[in-house]
């Protein structure tokens, strides 16, 4: 079946460096993508989203890039801080004719470790 997956299960970066977390998706029917951050003992926390009619979106210290040609999504974190240490998930929302509920399909997650 089609799925969302991540290239790297763990990523270790030094404080102050930029981080890039990648995600490959295979469902060409997906038109909305979200990055979530999950800290230990917490639920997924919304970071940033992007619709399929865009290829880049920027937030505070974060940028999401979408390449529909190769079905690739990335999250860039600028000047990574110790508080950024967490598991990061990408999630996709398949395009649907329904207006009554939108199941997200999550990837397996990448653990980001920021070292001083």
């Amino acid at each position: 079946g089609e799925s969302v997956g991540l290239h790297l299960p763990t990523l270790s970066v030094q404080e102050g460096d930029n981080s890039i977390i990648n995600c490959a998706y295979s469902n060409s029917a997906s038109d909305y993508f979200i990055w979530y951050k999950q800290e230990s003992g917490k639920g997924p926390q919304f970071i940033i989203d992007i619709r399929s009619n865009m290829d880049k979106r920027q937030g505070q210290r974060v940028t999401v890039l979408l390449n529909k040609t190769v079905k690739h999504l990335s999250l860039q974190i600028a000047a990574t801080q110790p508080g950024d240490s967490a598991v990061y998930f990408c999630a996709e929302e398949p395009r649907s004719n329904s207006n009554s509920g939108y199941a997200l399909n999550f990837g397996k997650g990448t653990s980001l470790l920021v070292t001083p």
Partner: protein
Amino acid sequence: EPEVTQTPSHQVTQMGQEVILRCVPISNHLYFYWYRQILGQKVEFLVSFYNNEISEKSEIFDDQFSVERPDGSNFTLKIRSTKLEDSAMYFCASSGQGRNQPQHFGDGTRLSIL
């Protein structure tokens, strides 16, 4: 900032017993969801709920599961007869009107079946 709240944070139950997990979604949201996450694995969709009825459910959401919005603020997940493999984190989420709206998650209930 409004948030989704879930209770209890941890539920320990004997196999075969019924459990009810509770959620208070963000007040102006109209779409409600349950997801689960088995330890070390990805988050999996269970069910979505809109306009007082289930709108979509996954294969995981079998006849042992049910959801209810008993009043204007609570959203519950009931597991009628728990099994060992139901042990997981259960997350409630809610989103605003329409498509392409971010789902906001609670901090989950850890369900442990003995």
